[in-house]
């Protein structure tokens, strides 16, 4: 019994790492640009499918990760430069416009995925064994992926808080006008941010496809999953997101074990709605949002 509980808890925590990486890109983009990128999940899927293609060319998924991240960075930067930059986000209908634009984009991305990779469910076999310690059995690939995901998310966090370019991004997220007054090129920072957010999605996809299979249409639920993490953690709150990712991971794994997979599929959404309604400021947030 204890072993089962520990196994569930650890598995949940490990999944939390993957969720954290999925959510971090979304969080970053929201923080800087106040855009909720509804195509985020689809970028994750494309990152995974890129990894699949590289894997079929005999590239190790971990080696494919930087490549997928780089490609997604380019895609994201181009989208920001070419499309989103032209979007009028100011005014009362601004949020509506960004949501509609990214909503449309999510269909474009997932269906381009369909054209390139087909509709079938695909996965990448990678480290299929397991590690056994004190009777607790954890899949090797989950351990590795989780570690990489945590490392990636933390690296970006350090970049944001410790380096000049990262600080420029954070400054922009706090006040675009102020940052512009300090001589920062807001446009460049937005391109960088959107690109980086997409790169994190791509990296998350690379890891996730070794854990669970993808098909071109898997993006929508992933977007909600990622959004749940940042809503739970408080928008733009990176420490909160870490905690939230782990909570979500544990909740999902436990629900699946106790109530079956049907309930686990719903638990993300239920958790999401409960948080939004009863704790709209997130776990660690203080002020109510307007």
């Amino acid at each position: 019994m204890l072993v089962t509980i520990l196994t569930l808890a650890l598995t949940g925590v490990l999944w939390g790492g993957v969720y954290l990486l999925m959510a971090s890109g979304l969080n970053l983009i929201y923080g800087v640009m106040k855009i909720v990128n509804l195509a985020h999940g689809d970028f994750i899927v494309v990152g995974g499918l890129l990894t699949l293609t590289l894997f079929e060319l005999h590239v190790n998924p971990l080696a494919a990760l930087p490549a997928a991240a780089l490609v997604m960075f380019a895609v994201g930067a181009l989208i920001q430069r070419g499309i989103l930059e032209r979007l009028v986000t100011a005014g009362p209908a601004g949020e509506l416009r960004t949501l509609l634009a990214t909503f449309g984009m999510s269909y474009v991305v997932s269906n381009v995925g369909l054209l390139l990779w087909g509709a079938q469910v695909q996965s990448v076999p990678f480290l299929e064994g397991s590690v056994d310690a004190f009777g607790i059995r954890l899949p090797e690939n989950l351990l590795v992926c989780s570690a990489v995901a945590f490392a990636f998310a933390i690296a970006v966090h350090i970049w944001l808080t410790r380096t000049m370019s990262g600080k420029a991004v954070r400054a922009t997220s706090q006040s675009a006008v102020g940052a512009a007054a300090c001589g920062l090129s807001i446009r460049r920072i937005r391109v960088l941010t959107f690109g980086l957010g997409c790169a994190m999605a791509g990296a998350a996809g690379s890891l996730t496809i070794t854990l669970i299979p993808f098909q071109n249409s898997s993006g929508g639920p992933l977007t909600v999953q990622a959004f749940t993490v940042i809503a739970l953690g408080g928008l733009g709150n990176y420490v909160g997101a870490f905690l939230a990712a782990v909570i979500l991971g544990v909740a999902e794994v436990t629900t699946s074990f106790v109530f079956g997979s049907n309930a686990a599929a719903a638990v993300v959404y239920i958790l999401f709605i409960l948080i939004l309604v009863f704790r709209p400021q997130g776990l660690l947030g203080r002020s109510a949002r307007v």
Partner: protein
Amino acid sequence: MITGFRRNTALIALLALTLAQTTPVRAADTIKIGFSVSETGALAAPSIFDRQGYELAADEVNAHGGLFGKKIELVHYDDQSTPSTAVALYQKLITDDKVDLVMGPYSSQINSAVTPIVDRAKLVMPSMDANPTAFDGSHPFVFQAIAQTPQYMAPMIDFAARRGVKTVALLYQNSPFPTALASGIKDEAQKHGMKIVFEEAYPPATTDFGPLLLKVAATNPDLLIGGTFLADAEGIVRAAKSQNLHAKMYAFSVGPVEPEFSRALGPAAENIFGNTLWFPSLSTKGNAEFVKAFRAKFNRDPDYHAALSYAALKLMTTAAAAVGSLDQEKIRTWLHGRTIDTVLGPFKLSPTGLQTGFSSYVIQWQKEKQLLVWPPQSATGTPVFPHPGWQ
């Protein structure tokens, strides 16, 4: 206001144009056979095999002079893997394209969706619906052109029983085909004195099977059997491996039959059992020629979906040729009256339209190849049992 009016006029014109476009030019010198294909969406991969089976069969008929001296023309549209779209399409095929014969779309679900309207139009349709429910006599013009779901894994259970399997863990997706299949598995297992020690259904969207297999491992079954499609079969194998489950046998309905199964799973696919309705090595009538022709035309190996659709179209044209007309009532009667040899084996219908002839075979992945291992008279290899453990 004038612009507003013009806008509306333009819309009317567009509407009229669209409607005009849909009225086809009738070419009386062909026999039209209509069906929908899931070119896009979740069912695309098997459905395209389906279409290619139809195309190959039509080619062959045309190469042999066609039907009543007329060429066969296939009319097909994309149903996007959605039943409602398929319903609208069969509506179109029947009322607008006025096809002479209809074939079934892919998947039990879409077939059962279009069954009522096809039957109401009094058109004979070979249906790829494996569930017996639609064939209760209420749709006399629709007949089953596939094997019945509940019996689909009977040979598998038979094999397991002979090798001394006692306890079974049953996992299945809560969609139509696997759900019906699961009840068949339970019946068969009971018949053979096996005990179901674990049973759980999961939704189609499930991707992480870790927690489920954690529970399975606690029951330590001899046989892990899954009413699955490809993705979930892969997920279950992967989770079973990482839980280091020690079952004697792992068997899945759909999944191992697909070539992607081994590609996606690598060594974990070894020694997994699967089901199929057809195998390239079968010595059924015309099978070798079918495999050869399919490879030549499409540059890939056929799978059992292609064999099923190929056989179904052949059945229809053979029946039409035999009765000498496209009279649907006559075609129906002819098909019901006899046993017909197909590439899948003997085809036979019950009075209500259930297919009771050919049934399934057991395959196993060995050294990255599918071997037919059961029943022995058709086998191309010897089964590996018990499962030697994960490498």
